[in-house]
């Protein structure tokens, strides 16, 4: 049987349950694709040498009577998620040889479900970026056009799935790092409600913003992975469960913030967006205009709060207990040299920015104001979502950019996140789903549409997203 790696997770799961295929066959198909395409795509930083053994174990578990939708399914895992005994480097020289000492909770849950981990995927270093060009180990290429980026920071995970080198993947999303690569590579990417998925064992970037989530070919696949990885966790006290937010009755209305779409979006992206809105109408949704006056400020708020949290979270990398270590003249020099060398330029830039906005004299003007703005934005989004099921926008203003296009100007790179950061700031769940392709230089490039729903309402997202499949 050929092309087993092109099955969706749901299809593969059915075939596994029916005894038509084995997990080993699925993994072999993925490994064959990896051999063909990973050398040029650089999606995987490491393919786990025991992937076949993991598959055989899953097959044995099935023979012993276990079922479960993810049993034996090959997944790719982003390099900032800890798997005990395996290297996790966050695509940074700082942690190039670091071996994880425990499993992330999401990994523990996937292990219990019997998933097979094919390898760890490339990313922007410490998740700092929107293109995977900030990796210390080379960029990842977009499988749809290898002169372009796959997006970031979960670019390796996205490329791995888009090129069928795994059936699904885990990424992390702090400002759009699952949804933007999903848009650029034609995948479904979900950022769950803040707290829906445990952050224990994820290398922290912005602790009030981070969420792990799935990158898949179909909405049903994303739903499947989400159902396995979600749940309250004693090790992460910000986690929630189904009782945390009240259920809501569907309004069958979709809200579009037209004022945010007036400029800066490629015309053919807008065309695809309008066409998708038509499909939603045809499927029984009413599309209404909504106002989000504070949304224009969201990116500025994000680029104050996120670097601030980054500067705190990355303080642990001091070369003393783990990671890159460089000896200087004094203890201070030890720190400064270890960190100066171990971290790449974008990481250093964000740490510096974060240090600035948290420093005495500037704290109130930047971080204080940003925090207040964040609370107001959250309240605004909550109010709007009382009247509509989802807020709908394109996920990105354009399709995948060319490698090297935005690397000279950090601010230009940051603007790629313009539609995605709001959901991280407010904690709302958001999903990116493909809405067709647009043509650039003769190539068809995917482009995504983003739905944002009320807290705890991933089911609303899945329902809306499925109408566009």
């Amino acid at each position, binding site marked *: 049987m050929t092309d087993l790696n092109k099955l969706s997770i749901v299809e593969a799961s059915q075939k596994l349950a029916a005894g038509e295929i084995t997990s080993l066959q699925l993994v072999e198909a993925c490994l064959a694709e990896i051999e063909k395409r990973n050398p040029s795509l650089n999606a995987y930083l490491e393919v786990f040498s025991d992937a076949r053994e993991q598959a055989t174990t899953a097959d044995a578990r099935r023979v012993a009577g276990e079922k479960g939708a993810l049993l034996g399914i090959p997944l790719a895992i982003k390099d900032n998620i800890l798997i005990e*005994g395996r290297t996790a480097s966050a695509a940074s020289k700082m942690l190039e040889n*670091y*071996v994880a*000492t*425990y499993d992330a909770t999401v990994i523990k849950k996937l292990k219990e479900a019997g998933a097979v981990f094919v390898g760890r995927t490339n990313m922007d270093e410490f998740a700092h970026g929107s293109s995977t060009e900030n990796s210390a180990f080379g960029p990842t290429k977009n499988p749809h056009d290898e002169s372009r980026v796959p997006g970031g920071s979960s670019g390796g995970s996205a490329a791995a799935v888009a090129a069928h080198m795994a059936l699904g993947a885990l990424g992390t999303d702090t400002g759009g790092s699952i949804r933007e690569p999903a848009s650029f590579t034609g995948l479904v990417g979900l950022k769950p409600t803040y707290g829906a998925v445990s952050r224990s064992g994820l290398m922290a970037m912005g602790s009030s913003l981070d969420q792990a989530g799935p990158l898949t070919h179909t909405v049903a696949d994303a739903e499947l992975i989400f159902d396995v990885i979600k749940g309250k966790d*004693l090790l992460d*006290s910000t986690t929630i469960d189904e009782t945390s937010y009240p259920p809501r009755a569907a309004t069958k209305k979709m809200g579009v913030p037209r004022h945010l779409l007036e400029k800066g979006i490629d015309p053919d992206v807008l065309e695809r967006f309008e066409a998708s809105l038509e499909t939603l109408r045809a499927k029984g949704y009413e599309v209404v205009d909504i106002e989000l006056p504070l949304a224009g*400020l969201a*990116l*500025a*708020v994000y*680029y*104050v709060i996120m670097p601030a949290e980054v*500067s705190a979270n990355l*303080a642990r990398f*001091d*070369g*003393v*207990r*783990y*990671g890159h*270590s460089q000896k*200087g003249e004094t*203890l*201070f*020099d*030890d*720190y*400064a*040299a270890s*960190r*100066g*060398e171990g*971290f790449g*330029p974008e990481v*250093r*830039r964000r*740490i*510096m*920015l974060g*240090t*600035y*906005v948290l*420093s005495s004299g500037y704290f109130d*003007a*930047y971080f*204080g*104001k*940003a925090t*207040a*703005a964040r*609370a*107001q934005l959250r*309240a605004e989004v909550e109010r709007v979502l009382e009247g509509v099921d989802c807020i709908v926008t394109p996920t990105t203003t354009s399709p995948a950019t060319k490698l090297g296009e935005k690397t000279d100007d*950090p*601010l230009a790179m*940051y603007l790629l996140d313009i539609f995605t950061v709001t959901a991280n700031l407010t*904690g709302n769940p958001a999903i990116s789903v493909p809405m067709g392709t647009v043509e650039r230089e003769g190539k068809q490039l995917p482009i995504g549409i983003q739905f944002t729903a009320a807290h705890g309402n991933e089911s609303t997202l899945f329902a809306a997203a499925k109408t566009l499949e």
Partner: protein
Amino acid sequence: MISKEEVLNLAQLARLKLSDQEVAGLQKDISNILDYVGQVSAVSTGKEKEKPLQRNVMRPDELRAASSPMDGKEEALRGAFPKREGDFNVVRKIIQKDE
């Protein structure tokens, strides 16, 4: 434009060693980014009495597991230290006796 001294001060606070070239680059980058994010200063604060998102998550003061989660991890944790001498992990002497 943020000054070179300010950038060097931040590097001190952040424990980062930067080259002169990088310091100059950061002066430009940080200034540009601050210009953009400076929009947040227009936000009025204290308008609504904001409900704090943080909530207390408590548990009883009891042992959760029969064994420590660090059981069997000692070698892995030790192995991550940059410098080892037998059973010891080597770090710089930071407490100096006053002579």
